[in-house]
């Protein structure tokens, strides 16, 4: 078989401000960084052998089932489990009263979430009781027999009801570290950012635009449902096989509730079917462990799609109030904004979402006078937390709409207006933090604008209109009638890594030894591979740093130190950095062994800079000194190290000043849409993206991340929203029938232009990439729809009724 051409991965960009990374060590080793090597788990995934968490199976295992509240806010008067317990095939039924330890709550940052409801439920679908039985249907029937008596309470659903003087407190007697600075106990966290004097600057503005924006609740909609298998162990502990984003964070929350020391809770990462933030919090982990320990049998829990909508946190819906000003020559004078995020019943990642929304609230622009406030509410709506781009996504939707409106007011081209105000390296953020690495915002806009436009009327064919290429698609709603094209642009800024003083580190254990006559490196981390390709990149880093061909990626588990979360675009940076660091230490040790063994044979061992290339020790001049196999012989060299990025600091609680972020990530989009203006249906024709990635460790994966993130942004723009009834606070569409995510017929061509300007502070100069494309995609699509329809459109997702005046 000859090899047909693969489509070009991406167009390599020049370097207008900054330079690409230069690599010396490992540059001659095949399969190192910068190559599009293939996934090490690819074969298992295409043959169906890859073991996802829901595929786990054990002899004699039981099935766990969760009974969830049918109301959003109520006192629990009684729970009667007798009939459920008496059901043949049922091994255990547990409620709050059966919890074994003093600790009965968990949470990422604030431990406010009950393992099982205690006297009160605070949101629709909250876990009340759990059942283990020998068949999932038996467990379901038994759960249905549990009688729960509720006394319903008034629901808190928005800012007004949350902060009313007589509002019921979602969490009485709060003791968390935010309670001291929030204006109301139903506010999780508040972060102002004040710089310069926005009031005074507003007086200089020739044009001022004000807007109010609404951002809907998005679901991560990862395809692999929450699931796992807990196996009781002989020492009284438990082994959990689980799909998660952060094993050690899970462990920290699970062990105390089980009343076990952490070393008696072993965790192994099972295959993860996507995450996108939705697996940063616990779901069924504790419940499975509780049932396993109670019954002495392995317990498997697998949510179905309905339950999954209740089983994880969602993206915060938000109301955003903005005021922007500009002079008549187009320079931004000031930004004032207030961002109200609905955190739902429990805190989850709300504080971090608030921090991001506030600190990135003006976007990638130079503004000296800023007055921002972001808050997250406690309500009876579904809990919200991490999702790709958390906090920054909501803000970007609003500030980019504002930038278009302001450009129009000034009378400037929308892209030029952005470029005129674009930040660059050296710009000081509203937090007072200078941006100390490339920030090619204007260049990304230039690139995305310079891409060729998709041809007009692609749906026309000799046989008439091809409905598949028209708004409405296969539903045959238009043959061209009412169809208007629109174009929109947007750009965004996202922080990379955990910010605000968090000790954000990762751990890597790297070993090199001779196996079957060949040097082999083994990389062991606790990094959750959720699909992003971290395992691919770790192998590449090991090849580059150690000059070996063979790399084994050890399964992720808690037998090695924490890798931190697979979120916040951080894993390639932080765990990649840890792997690089550990490899470098291994390399030094290997060279030391070489010097010890062979130093006397060749002066270069002492004098030259030595590299490991192609399984050999070579000088930087290319002279081969020894085979790695001969250096190592029977010796294995192993290093385990923690690695940290530069420290950050918290934002001042009054002014928001502080070096809160370690790195920023930028992407720009151009959306081309065709709107059936009569029916309000949208077809996105093309969604071009330009992004600076610092260094593309794996270009194929980089482009895949950008296209995937772009598509999730498209989903928010035109279809995705969890609809919560404003009266009952109940979820109205917990299914893939009514919560729609883009199909392949909704997703356009996504050309990607990748820029590689090194961030000298980061390993290989790389930049975290996963989230930035989700930011600007949504506002670009909205801008294109506005361009096609002339409508204002201040909410997302935009639905047909919003485009046809029938909402």
């Amino acid at each position, binding site marked *: *078989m*000859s090899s*047909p051409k693969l*489509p070009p991965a991406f167009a390599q960009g020049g370097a207008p401000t900054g330079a690409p990374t230069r690599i010396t060590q490992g540059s001659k080793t095949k*399969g190192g960084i910068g190559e599009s*090597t*293939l*996934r*090490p*788990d*690819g*074969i*298992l*995934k*295409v*043959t*169906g*052998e*890859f*073991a*996802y968490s*829901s*595929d*786990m*199976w*054990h002899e004699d295992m039981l099935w766990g089932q969760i009974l969830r509240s049918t109301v959003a806010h109520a006192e629990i008067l009684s729970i009667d489990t007798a009939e459920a317990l008496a059901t043949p095939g049922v091994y255990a039924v547990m409620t709050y009263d059966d919890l074994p330890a003093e600790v009965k709550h968990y949470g990422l940052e604030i431990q406010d979430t009950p393992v099982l409801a205690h006297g009160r439920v605070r949101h629709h679908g909250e876990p009340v009781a759990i059942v283990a039985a020998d*068949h999932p*249907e038996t467990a379901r029937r038994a759960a249905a027999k549990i009688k729960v008596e509720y006394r319903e309470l008034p629901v808190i659903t928005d800012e007004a009801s949350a902060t009313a003087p007589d509002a019921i407190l979602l969490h009485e007697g709060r003791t968390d570290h935010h309670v001291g600075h929030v204006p109301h106990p139903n506010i999780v966290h508040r972060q102002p950012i004040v710089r310069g004097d926005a009031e005074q600057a507003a007086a200089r503005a020739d044009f001022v635009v004000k807007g109010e924006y609404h951002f809907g609740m998005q679901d991560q*909609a*990862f*395809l*692999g449902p929450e699931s796992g*298998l807990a196996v009781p162990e002989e020492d009284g502990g438990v082994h959990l096989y689980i799909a998660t984003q952060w094993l050690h964070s899970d462990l920290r929350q699970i062990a105390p509730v089980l009343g076990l020391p952490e070393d008696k809770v072993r965790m192994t990462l099972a295959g993860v*079917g*996507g995450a996108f933030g939705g697996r940063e919090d616990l779901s069924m982990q504790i419940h499975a462990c509780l049932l396993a320990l109670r019954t002495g049998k392995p317990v498997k829990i697998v949510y*179905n*799609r309905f339950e999954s909508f209740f089983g994880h946190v969602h993206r915060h819906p938000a109301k955003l109030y903005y005021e922007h000003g500009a002079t008549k020559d187009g320079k931004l004078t000031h930004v004032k904004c207030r961002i109200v995020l609905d955190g739902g019943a429990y805190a989850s990642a709300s504080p971090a979402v608030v921090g991001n929304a506030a600190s990135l609230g003006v976007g990638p622009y130079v503004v000296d006078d800023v007055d921002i406030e972001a808050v997250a509410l406690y309500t009876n709506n579904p809990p919200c937390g991490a999702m790709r781009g958390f906090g920054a996504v909501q803000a970007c939707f609003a500030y980019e709409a504002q930038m278009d409106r302001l450009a129009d007011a000034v009378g400037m081209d929308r892209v030029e207006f952005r470029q005129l105000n674009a930040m660059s390296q050296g710009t000081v953020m509203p937090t007072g933090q200078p941006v100390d690495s490339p920030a090619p915002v204007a260049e990304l806009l230039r690139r995305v604008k310079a891409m060729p436009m998709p041809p007009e009327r692609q749906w026309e064919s000799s046989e008439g209109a*091809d409905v*598949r290429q028209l708004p409405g698609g296969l539903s045959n709603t238009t043959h061209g009638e009412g169809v208007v094209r629109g174009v929109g642009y947007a750009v965004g800024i996202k922080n990379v890594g955990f910010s605000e003083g968090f000790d954000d580190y990762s751990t890597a254990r790297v070993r090199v030894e001779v196996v079957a006559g060949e040097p082999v490196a083994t990389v062991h981390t606790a990094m959750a591979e959720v*699909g*992003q*390709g971290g*395992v691919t990149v770790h192998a*590449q880093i090991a090849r580059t740093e150690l000059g070996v*061909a*063979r*790399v*084994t*990626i050890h399964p992720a588990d808690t037998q090695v130190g924490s890798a931190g979360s697979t979120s916040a675009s951080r894993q390639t940076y932080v765990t990649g950095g840890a792997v690089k660091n550990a490899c470098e230490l291994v390399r030094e040790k290997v060279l030391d062994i070489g010097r010890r063994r062979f130093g006397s044979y060749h002066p270069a061992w002492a004098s030259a800079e030595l590299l490991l290339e192609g399984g050999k020790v070579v000088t930087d001049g290319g002279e081969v000194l020894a085979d790695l196999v001969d250096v190592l012989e029977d010796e294995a060299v192993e290093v385990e190290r923690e690695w940290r990025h530069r420290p950050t600091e918290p934002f001042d609680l009054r002014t928001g000043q502080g070096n809160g972020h370690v790195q920023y990530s930028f992407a720009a989009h151009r959306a081309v849409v065709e709107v059936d203006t009569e029916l309000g249906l949208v077809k996105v024709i093309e969604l071009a993206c330009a992004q600076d990635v610092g260094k593309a460790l794996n270009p*194929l994966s980089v482009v895949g991340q950008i*296209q*995937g*993130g772009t*598509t999730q942004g498209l989903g928010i723009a035109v279809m995705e929203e969890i609809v919560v009834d404003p009266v009952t606070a109940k979820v109205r569409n917990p299914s*893939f029938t009514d919560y729609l*995510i883009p*199909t*392949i017929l909704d*997703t356009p061509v*996504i050309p990607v232009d990748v820029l590689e300007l090194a961030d000298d502070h980061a390993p290989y100069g790389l930049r975290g990439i996963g989230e930035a494309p989700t930011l600007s995609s949504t506002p670009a699509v909205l801008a294109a729809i506005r361009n096609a329809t002339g409508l204002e459109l201040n909410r997302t997702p935009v639905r047909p009724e919003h485009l046809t005046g029938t909402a």
Partner: protein
Amino acid sequence: MRVNFTVNGRPQEADDVWEGESLLYVLRERLGLPGSKNACEQGECGSCTVRLDGVPVCSCLVAAGQVEGREVVTVEGLADFARQRARSEGTRGSSGGPGASGTSLDEARAWQARGAGPHTGEGAELSPVQQAFIDAGAVQCGFCTPGLLVAADEMLERNPSPSDADIREALSGNLCRCTGYEKIMDAVRLAAARQSEEV
């Protein structure tokens, strides 16, 4: 109840099947074939796509009792299925499907990223569409992949040189949340191109 049917060419018998069980559940939990995925169980995502008497269907919506005496091909049998098809058009033959149940813990514990070299697709016995998915970067989390492979393979069987719109239509019943579908398009185009070069 008991259900007898053929999976990937091998006769299978499932006992004590609850009448409400789906074909998907029987494959995954009783026959040790968890390759077909349980993403939505309502026919909206295509992750559980298998071929039932040759026709792609959502196995979550087929009652177990309905497959009595019928033939099923899952992603686990796709490579063999494609090989046999290549050998003699129209022949559906046997393959060695796994006999045991589920993914055992030993297997799960022993999980290691396979492949020594940088291009780990080399040397494996895969169908053209499986190989193309790896080569084109169409696999991220991989949960949608089995269903997409079964659907894409069947489309290429019917339509060896599909247009982009044809590919999109044929795969419109398979949701993917990771890739934005671009690399999936690349993979199917690649498989089609390789297929046409072989002919």
